[in-house]
């Protein structure tokens, strides 16, 4: 994306205002992207506290870079590139101490209640927990790049072109990554009961 095209990106405009000293625009960017960045990081690292800490670092880096910011790419591409870089580094540093058993969502904090209108039965809760656990494990077991691509595609609804820019590869490479990832998930999650 060139400068002209990026000019259409409202986020980039906001960032340019931050560059000019308008801190309210930074607040707008934070409001708009806080959720998606934290959620993306949560699914990538598996712990909410770590995800929030990494997201803080992402926004701090954005703020620190305001002086040298140039809208050479879509703002969210830049944002998710920083987030991905930080999360993968964190995973590489802590891999020997972590395993996916430590995913910290218990039944109490789970978003289960938002799915069902009525109070779920014990059986429904169990099914939900089992499904959730299987989904997390299946996604966590994907190779790093495939996992990042799936999280951006499925949960952040990003387009192939944007995912390609975040991962620094071609659009066809992203399509191939995603296809392999979804094929693996299809095999691993075929038995999972839909709620």
């Amino acid at each position: 994306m060139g400068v002209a095209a990026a000019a259409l990106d409202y986020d980039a405009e906001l960032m340019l205002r931050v560059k000019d000293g308008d801190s309210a625009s930074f607040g707008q960017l934070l409001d708009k992207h806080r959720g998606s960045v934290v959620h993306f990081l949560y699914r990538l690292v598996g712990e909410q506290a770590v995800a929030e800490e990494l997201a803080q670092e992402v926004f701090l880096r954005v703020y620190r870079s305001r002086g040298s910011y140039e809208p050479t790419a879509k703002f969210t591409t830049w944002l998710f590139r920083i987030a991905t870089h930080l999360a993968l580094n964190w995973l590489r540093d802590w891999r020997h101490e972590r395993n996916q058993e430590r995913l910290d969502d218990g039944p109490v904090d789970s978003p289960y209640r938002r799915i069902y209108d009525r109070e779920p039965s014990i059986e429904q809760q169990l099914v939900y927990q089992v499904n959730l656990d299987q989904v997390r494990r299946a996604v966590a077991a994907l190779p790093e790049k495939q996992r990042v691509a799936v999280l951006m595609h499925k949960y952040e609804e990003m387009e192939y072109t944007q995912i390609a820019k975040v991962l620094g590869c071609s659009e066809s490479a992203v399509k191939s990554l995603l296809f392999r990832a979804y094929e693996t998930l299809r095999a691993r999650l075929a038995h999972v009961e839909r709620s």
Partner: protein
Amino acid sequence: MTCPIEKGKPELLAEFAAGELDMETASALEQHMAGCGVCRTRAAEHRAVWEVLDVWEAPPVSAEFDRRLYRRIEAEARPSWWERIVEPFRAMPLRQLVPLTATTCLLMVGVLLERPGLTVPATRHADTVRIDQVERTLDDMELLGELGDAQPAPRPHANVM
């Protein structure tokens, strides 16, 4: 449309399930799937995976998130002790800054060179004084001891008797 699986393009079925195909391709594929059970099953499986993934919702962001971030931003914006020292000299022209720096350096060198000369003799002097005092005290005690031996103290019982 020819069968995507036979054609070696099974990714079309995953893309169809994810809603990524354009209208024309999607409708052609739907027509094909009406008569192709293999493709229909594969597409349904991909659709099922897509729906199962929805189970994984992320918890809400903590209410403290923004406050913590702005606190960190403020902390970074606050100047460090070094910046606070240097700040008044930033606006100073180089012509004034060079002699000032040179004078400060000379003063610091002077203090460093002068310090050992001042402190070491002072300590030595103090040590000498202390030794003298101890020697004098010992002499006094010896003298008192000798005086005590020469004039024995009177016995209290003798006076009573």
